[in-house]
């Protein structure tokens, strides 16, 4: 039982980082109905900028965090301008393909920046963690969970309490109608991208600081985890992204503990497969699927 709870706690902590990445995907998908495949690689390149500062300039950990997040945001802006803004509204496939092409480009840039395979990434804390009864909480895990929860609260306030958030939700429902309100969907989309990249940068930093190393494969890894978490919870649903992320983390932690590392990813895919077969909209995205179906019936 103690093992079970301990594993769940570990899973929730990594899951909260997944949730953040899934949120980034969801924000962009919500506004544009397009998936930004190079989201993970953008985070990876941001992290490479961070580790570059760490390795070559011997930057302090806080500076590495700043460089990672700022780098991710900068790359995010670049991706938005190139793959989404420059490509016409009705060419969703084209921008998805181009976001895949950009992915390759970003990996290339990362290997030019730092040609090696693996680089160290500074840890968040020098001290290990806290004991609560029989449980041990790693400091990184506690921080990840806390920061993720904090970001969720900020995101929620931004979306539901501010004019920008309202405009973003209006654009997600209908950019056509939003234009009549004097909202510029192009501008809102851009800022949604910036915000998603910021969230991604934070998530990337937390994950890598816990791992203490970074490789160019981090991009692929982050895109996969984020997409699975988003699909699991429900396409385009913010609570869904959170639930999906946490669930994915917990499932992975348990399968790793009970069945071994090799089965871990396999189980995640299996669960995703089952959820999509049983509930095509994901756990919390059913409403969105139904709304779309309704809209299509009307047309």
């Amino acid at each position, binding site marked *: 039982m103690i093992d079970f709870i301990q594993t769940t706690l570990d899973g929730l902590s990594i899951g909260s980082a997944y949730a953040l990445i899934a949120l980034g995907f969801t924000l962009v998908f919500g506004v544009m109905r397009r998936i930004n495949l190079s989201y993970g690689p953008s985070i990876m390149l941001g992290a490479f900028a961070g580790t570059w500062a760490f390795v070559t300039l011997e930057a302090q950990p806080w500076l590495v965090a700043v460089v990672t997040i700022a780098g991710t945001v900068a790359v995010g802006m670049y991706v938005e301008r190139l793959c989404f803004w420059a490509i016409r509204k009705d060419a969703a496939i084209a921008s998805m393909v181009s976001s895949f092409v950009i992915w390759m480009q970003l990996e290339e840039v990362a290997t030019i920046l730092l040609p090696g395979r693996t680089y160290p990434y500074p840890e968040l804390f020098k001290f290990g963690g806290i004991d609560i009864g029989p449980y041990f909480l790693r400091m990184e895990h506690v921080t990840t969970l806390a920061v993720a929860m904090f970001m969720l609260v900020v995101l929620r306030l931004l979306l539901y309490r501010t*004019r920008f958030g*309202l405009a973003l939700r*209006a654009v997600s429902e*209908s950019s056509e*109608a*939003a234009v009549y309100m*004097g*909202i510029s969907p192009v501008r809102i989309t851009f800022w949604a991208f910036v915000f998603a990249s910021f969230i991604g940068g934070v998530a990337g930093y937390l994950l890598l600081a816990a791992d203490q190393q970074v490789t160019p494969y981090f991009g692929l890894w982050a895109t996969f985890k984020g997409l699975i978490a988003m699909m699991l919870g429900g396409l385009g649903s913010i609570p869904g992204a959170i639930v999906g992320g946490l669930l994915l983390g917990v499932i992975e932690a348990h399968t790793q503990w009970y069945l071994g590392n090799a089965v871990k990813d396999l189980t995640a895919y299996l669960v995703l497969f089952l959820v999509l077969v049983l509930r095509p909209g994901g756990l919390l995205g059913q409403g969105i699927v139904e709304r779309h179906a309704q809209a299509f019936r009307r047309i």
Partner: protein
Amino acid sequence: MLDVHDLHIDYGKISAVRGLSLSVDAGEIVAVIGANGAGKSSTLNALSGIIKPTKGSIRYGGKSLAGHSVRSYIRMGIVQVPEGRMVFRTLTVLENLQVGAYRLGSFLLSHISPEDVLQRFPVLAERLHEPASNLSGGQAQLLAVARGLMARPSLLLLDEPTLGLSPIASEEIFRLIDALRNEGLSILIVEQNVRQTLDIADRGYVIEGGRIVLQGSAQELKKDDGLVASYLGMKSACAPRSTQMRVK
């Protein structure tokens, strides 16, 4: 107040509006009448900045607006209530109203209060926190107009406000439009319910093929034989379209 001169709108090689001129004075309802595809909606969309005219001048309160963004139009006081209502179904009634004030609004939503506008719409006040998808067609149209009023317009552009509504709901919309004019708002309305529109309008323009073919006071237009034949008699021809377009 609004002066449009020699307006041209082209979509690629197709020209929707060819040399249209019209004006709206303060505190009057001006109707734009025409068959489907005559260029009515294109004209309205150009007058709210949604589409950029190929040629022509749009002056409002002495300022030239052609080529400006929707933002500038709203800031100048020209607000359009789009065809098909385009209410945000996933947002609450309150949020729909607040998004109407987007261009005036402050950073926090709690600072955007719809109270002034709501006095006129008790139905909406009752359902403030419900999603707009719960509203009936008539209520959704009221919400669309209320949302437009949130931007504090001096000229309201209404595109087919009674499309798909029951006669009773349409009646309510026309009463609302009449009341708004009586309080000093200028209104430019595109409508398929020609008779009822002319009943409340001060003046009207008839568009055909992107040009104005007839204009005059509402009284004169109602008596015009050609207009009676082609539009006032075509109620039955409009009916299938309105049921087809019905939202919810």
